């Protein structure tokens, strides 16, 4: 049953070769979400049969199949096929506790709220939580933040493994950047863009989830695409000096030249122009707000 005033939640689960973890995550969502919620699994090109379990098509759960579009596009596709007033993007290797979603929804009611995310711990180290990310160096590597206190707080970047936003914000922002390839760098681009467009990213310590951290992806990932995504974040949002710093930091990577060629063929120039025309803050405001000083 849905309590009066509780918006309907759509959980969008992106999966590719997740093995048994997909079914476990869907079962956890079914067990913990309010009754009127829906679960939408986007199986983005698995070849391990992981999306074939019967629960993937039970009432309240739907399955879409795509062919390796990458995380950003698959999330957007799932969101556009969902119906809830609140969309939660969930990795297909997550453990959730009862009521995890409620504090996230409370924060999404705040003025200017863009997205909200829980504290995240590794399943293998269950008491070590991270509270959102910062851009820790000019190669755009992410560093986990520590908890300030028990109340929700602003973070530069939120973990996409469990990320909630209203449908209204999803539609206004366009969700995830479809120019990002495969995986890697998607959380960072989304976080920076939301802030620059005037939306706030909130970490909600009261909500906690446990995530499976792997030492390699369960599907092929081209390193050039990972580096491309970092270049794209800088190309879309940063001033010339910071773009130069990012390129210098990434130039030593063996996939850098290939990443540059991907960027040259992309829509980044037109996309940057559109974002600049609508943004509420510039990148220096973002760096100052969060004390990022590289």
């Amino acid at each position, binding site marked *: 049953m849905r309590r009066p005033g509780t918006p309907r939640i759509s959980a969008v689960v992106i999966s590719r070769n997740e093995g048994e973890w997909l079914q476990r*995550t869907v079962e956890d969502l079914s067990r913990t979400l309010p009754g009127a919620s829906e679960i939408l699994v986007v199986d983005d090109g698995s070849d391990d049969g992981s999306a074939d379990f019967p629960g993937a098509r039970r009432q309240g759960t739907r399955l879409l199949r795509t062919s390796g579009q990458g995380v950003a596009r698959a999330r957007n596709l799932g969101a556009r096929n969902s119906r809830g007033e609140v969309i939660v993007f969930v990795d297909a290797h997550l*453990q959730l506790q*009862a009521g995890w979603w409620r504090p996230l929804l409370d924060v999404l009611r705040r003025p200017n709220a863009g997205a909200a995310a829980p504290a995240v711990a*590794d399943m293998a180290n269950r*008491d070590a939580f991270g509270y959102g990310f910062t851009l820790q160096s000019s190669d755009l590597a992410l560093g*986990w933040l520590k908890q300030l206190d028990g109340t929700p707080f602003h973070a530069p970047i939120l973990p996409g493994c469990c990320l909630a936003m209203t449908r209204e914000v999803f539609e206004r922002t366009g969700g995830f950047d479809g120019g990002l390839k495969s995986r*890697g760098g998607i959380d960072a681009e989304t976080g920076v863009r939301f802030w620059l467009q005037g939306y706030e990213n909130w970490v909600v310590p009261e909500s906690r989830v*446990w995530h499976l951290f792997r030492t390699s*992806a369960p599907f*092929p990932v081209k390193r050039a695409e990972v580096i491309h995504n970092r270049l794209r974040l800088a190309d879309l949002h940063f001033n010339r000096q910071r773009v130069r710093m990012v390129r210098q930091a990434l130039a030593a990577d063996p996939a850098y030249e290939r990443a540059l060629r991907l960027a040259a063929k992309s829509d980044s120039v037109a996309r940057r122009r559109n974002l600049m025309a609508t943004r509420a803050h510039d990148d220096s405001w973002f760096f100052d707000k969060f004390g990022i000083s590289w």
Partner: protein
Amino acid sequence: MPTSDSDKPPGAKPPSPAPKKPKFSIQELTAINAALQANPATKNLAERVIDALNDPGVSPPPAN
């Protein structure tokens, strides 16, 4: 300390075995890549060497 029933993985099946760690570091693969790039006969193999690193994404939060 978390005390909810989500402390246990959902479902009765045992967890999948942990994935194997990459056999080479990025530094080692970079060196192999450079060597392959330098030889016209092996140049087209260089990209595959780097892609074999298979970026794992974000690291877990550090212990407090």
